[in-house]
């Protein structure tokens, strides 16, 4: 019986192996994606390769808030229309996008880049915490909203942050209870998100 790998050339195999590393794609779906790309070489594959290279070169984490953008500070931090007195702390850029899509927040953001988890080896130094404390010290900042998941890791991270922000003259708030946030923010419909933001309360 023919084994899978011997039949596929090294270039194609490399493509499949890399595609299989993407979230949501396994070896089977990676093969399907590779075949699709080859079939759509001009309309999809080349533009994709170009977009990948461009993004790899130009997109970086904003040195202020951690958002991904091709300019630094990012478009949100640079937007003079936004309310600089409120900083909303989120786990990932995906959560930032969800809040933006819902039009739920008119202030600035701070992206932690994960949650504290000793079991996964994620500690305070792995998260964008020092910069948050620095930002919160600025006189213009009046409120920090902790929009973190209602999970053990989300809540212990929130608790940890409140300890470290205790010395700053800011009001600490969190989204109204009972609303799953964080990684789950993305799945919430926009109305729910906006309501959770509006009814936020002291952390």
């Amino acid at each position: 019986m023919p084994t899978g790998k011997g039949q596929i050339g090294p270039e194609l195999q490399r493509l499949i192996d890399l595609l299989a590393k993407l979230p949501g794609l396994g070896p089977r779906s990676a093969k399907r994606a590779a075949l699709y790309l080859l079939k759509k070489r001009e309309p999809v594959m080349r533009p994709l390769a170009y977009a990948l290279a461009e993004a790899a070169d130009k997109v970086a984490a904003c040195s202020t808030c951690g958002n991904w953008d091709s300019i630094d500070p990012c478009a949100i931090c640079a937007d003079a229309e936004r309310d600089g007195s409120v900083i909303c702390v989120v786990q990932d850029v995906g959560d930032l996008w969800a809040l933006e899509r819902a039009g739920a927040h008119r202030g600035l953001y701070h992206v932690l880049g994960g949650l504290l988890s000793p079991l996964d080896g994620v500690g305070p130094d792995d998260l964008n915490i020092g910069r948050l404390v620095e930002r919160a010290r600025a006189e213009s900042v009046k409120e920090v909203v902790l929009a973190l998941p209602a999970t053990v890791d989300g809540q212990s991270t929130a608790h940890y942050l409140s300890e470290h922000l205790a010395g700053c003259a800011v009001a600490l708030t969190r989204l109204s209870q009972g609303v799953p946030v964080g990684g789950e923010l993305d799945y919430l419909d926009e109305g729910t998100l906006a309501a959770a933001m509006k009814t936020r309360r002291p952390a």
Partner: protein
Amino acid sequence: MATPARAAGRAPVRFRRLALMDFRSYARAEVALDGRPVALFGPNGAGKTNLLEALSLLGPGRGLRSARLDELPRVGGAGGWAVSARLDVAGEERRLGVGAAASAPDRRICRIDETAAAGPAALAEHVRFLWLTPAQDRLFTDSPGERRRFLDRMALARNPAQARAAADYELAMRQRQRLLDERSRDEAWLAALETRMAEAGVALAAARRETASALAAAEIAAGDEDAGFPAADIALEGELEAALDAAPAAEVEEAFAERLRRNRAADAAAGRALIGPHRSDLLVTHRQKGTPARACSTGEQKALLIGLVLANARALALSARFRAGASAPLVLLLDEIAAHLDKDRRAALFDILDGLDFQVFMTGTDKSLFAAWGARAQGFAVEDGGLTETTLT
């Protein structure tokens, strides 16, 4: 005559159809059910327990064998598996399905009415399972951990939110232990995890207390004693459970977090948390004899255990949430239920089950074990990877 549970007018649930595909020993099997209790009989290894397990997977959790997902697909099958059911919930049809695709065997798929459900927890809104398996026969002689899990499962049937508290407590405890193992001195981080442990731990202990007292109340009300199911006295042994007798939850929480803080060095040295609800025990005593359950005979222990499960089912039927229709209907899965019981106790048990108004699934090796059901139950012979309907008389 209508029992109080029936008169309450809450929604009964009845399985109408069950289909298995590449699940354990079953390549393909389909059964039509008419709503009566179901008795499955057949030789050892026929697939009776597998069928109960399939049903149990239509609820949250890992089912009645606590199996890993990779154990479920049929050996020799394509790698995926599926269990689906049609239920009649107060006259409305519900379709529930669980399974995994061959391409993603480690992702459990849950479907409700043919649309993807957020997760297994969503299933608990439609049906909940309580089970008794031979693995539990040693409950009273086993380690406290088994009894704790038994109690927590009963608590879970009362309130599905309980699963969250148990999982949160476990996770926060493991996270804290990892920090202690690494000799971390990050005060804020440890305190954050201890606060989580205290919140979830006290919720867990409170739910156990509620379950234990509901059990006691239901048992006194039931009077199964004459039917051969001895009454049991139930006590919880645990610091938090006891502390909740004397102080409000918020205070117990604070005190527990403080004790954890003071215990850091000891816990670090021991490699585990030395105090907390993960060390509690459920103590059961044969009321009439005044003997601890572990000192009772095999048959007496089985009878005590069945008594507890029945008491829990009854307590659930009586609970306010349940009567208001706020919690999902219950299904009882009783594996090898007739083992260790003499003929009279079996007949008495069937009468009690018949009066419960929950759909019951039972298994046994021989058809004759279920004879006392007569036409009140639907019988199936399990063999050669399939089921054949047979009368029980």
